[in-house]
């Protein structure tokens, strides 16, 4: 067993530098690497390019990095829940690349899997395809999209073991698995870190080979963005 455990978030972020490209898991505020984001704020790393489906809200998630102007560029599919984001984008302080959600996931997954590029129908005939190769297969048009390159991937899982194996919970899984192994260094934070051999090898979503560092996260807030309920009859 190759041990990937590090003592804490500080050790997990060793080597992080200004102007790096990061992948960050999560959909909205669900399944985001809360500890890694807090540490990025604390270290005040600047000039970041962040690949993440969303940009958080004003006072949580990636919004915390936006508040401190740590992000130079966002690569996302949907960024609409954040006033500070809007202000920085409209003023030109923040560069934004919008990518269809499935394409975003697959550009991560392609990096994980050693595929340099792939053809997807998403965005054909739209401004997303501008400047990109398009091509017909079996009479349907596709756009060639390239794998991402990133320095760090920060992911959040439910359970993990010292070998770096990860298990996700509910829809907090989302982009996290596809980002594992898609960057030079993948850092996984988990709610519960167990010894190797504890998890059923049949139930592991992401094998430890895709993870370089793992630590048990602390103080998860897991904020709900749109609390929606129904009334008991």
């Amino acid at each position, binding site marked *: 067993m190759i041990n990937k455990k590090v003592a804490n978030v500080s050790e997990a972020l060793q080597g992080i530098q200004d102007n790096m490209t990061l992948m960050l898991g999560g*959909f*909205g*505020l*669900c*399944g985001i690497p809360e500890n890694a984001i807090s540490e990025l704020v604390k270290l005040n790393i600047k000039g970041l390019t962040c690949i993440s*489906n969303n940009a958080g809200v004003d006072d949580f998630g990636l919004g915390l990095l936006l508040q401190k102007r740590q992000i130079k560029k966002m690569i*996302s*599919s*949907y*960024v*609409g*829940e954040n006033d500070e984001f*809007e202000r920085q*984008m*409209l003023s030109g302080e923040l560069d*934004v690349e*919008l990518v*269809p*959600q*499935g*394409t*975003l*996931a*697959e550009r*991560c*997954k392609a990096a994980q899997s050693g595929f340099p590029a792939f053809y*997807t*129908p*998403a*965005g*054909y*005939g*739209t*401004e*997303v395809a501008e400047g990109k190769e398009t091509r017909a297969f079996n009479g349907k048009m596709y756009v060639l999209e390239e794998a991402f390159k990133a320095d760090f991937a920060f992911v959040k899982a*439910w359970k993990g073991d010292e070998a770096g194996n990860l298990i*996700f*919970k*509910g*829809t*907090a*899984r*989302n*982009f*996290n*698995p*596809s980002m594992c192994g898609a960057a030079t260094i993948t850092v996984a934070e988990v709610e519960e870190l167990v010894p190797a051999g504890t998890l059923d090898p049949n139930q592991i*979503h992401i094998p430890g080979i895709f993870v370089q560092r793992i630590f048990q996260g602390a103080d998860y807030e*897991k*904020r*709900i*963005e*749109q*609390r*929606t*309920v*129904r*009334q*008991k009859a």
Partner: protein
Amino acid sequence: MLDKNGIAQRIAKEVKNGYYVNLGIGIPTLVANFVRDDIEVEFQSENGILGMGPFPFEGEEDADLINAGKQTITALPGASFFDSSMSFSMIRGQHVDLTILGAMEVAQNGDIANWKIPGKMVKGMGGAMDLVASAENIIVAMMHTNKKGESKLLKQCSLPLTGVGCVTKIVTNLAVLEIKDNAFYLVERAPGVSVEDIKQATEGTLIIDGEVPEMQL
């Protein structure tokens, strides 16, 4: 004339037994409320659940269980969770039988625009471009005209496109229409709406072939 719930109710009739369905934000979300109880349907949300259930009861919300609109949800028996890549494999691989989504504009060639208004804050396309480019069976749910009273069924979209030539059916507050041969075919009128009303509200080519029945809800 239908309200939003009426549009959702009419679309629910398009949901057939055995369908996997992806519902967009807005009117499409309401469709789930009107699907018949006696057919087997599963709802997919592209953030990673199949077999999505209703909103949770107060106090039973789970932060790790949301839909693509970031709302708290529940999972029904037989549900499964999966990652974003597999979710779009379902969509791109045409395993999802029906996609229902909103639009700002639809053109008579099936083009759709629903993600960007030049000069306004752009929130992003989310999964819409993947959905419209992949699905074989797309229904657009929208009001027939915009807030200024202008038609949203056009000869050509004026807004940046989400997808090309992909819409086959539209249900609005006024009518059900199908797109073929570069035209809108009027299939049904909403209760109390005349063919003339629909003509007035449709900028694109409208084909009226014989008597147009009023829709049954």
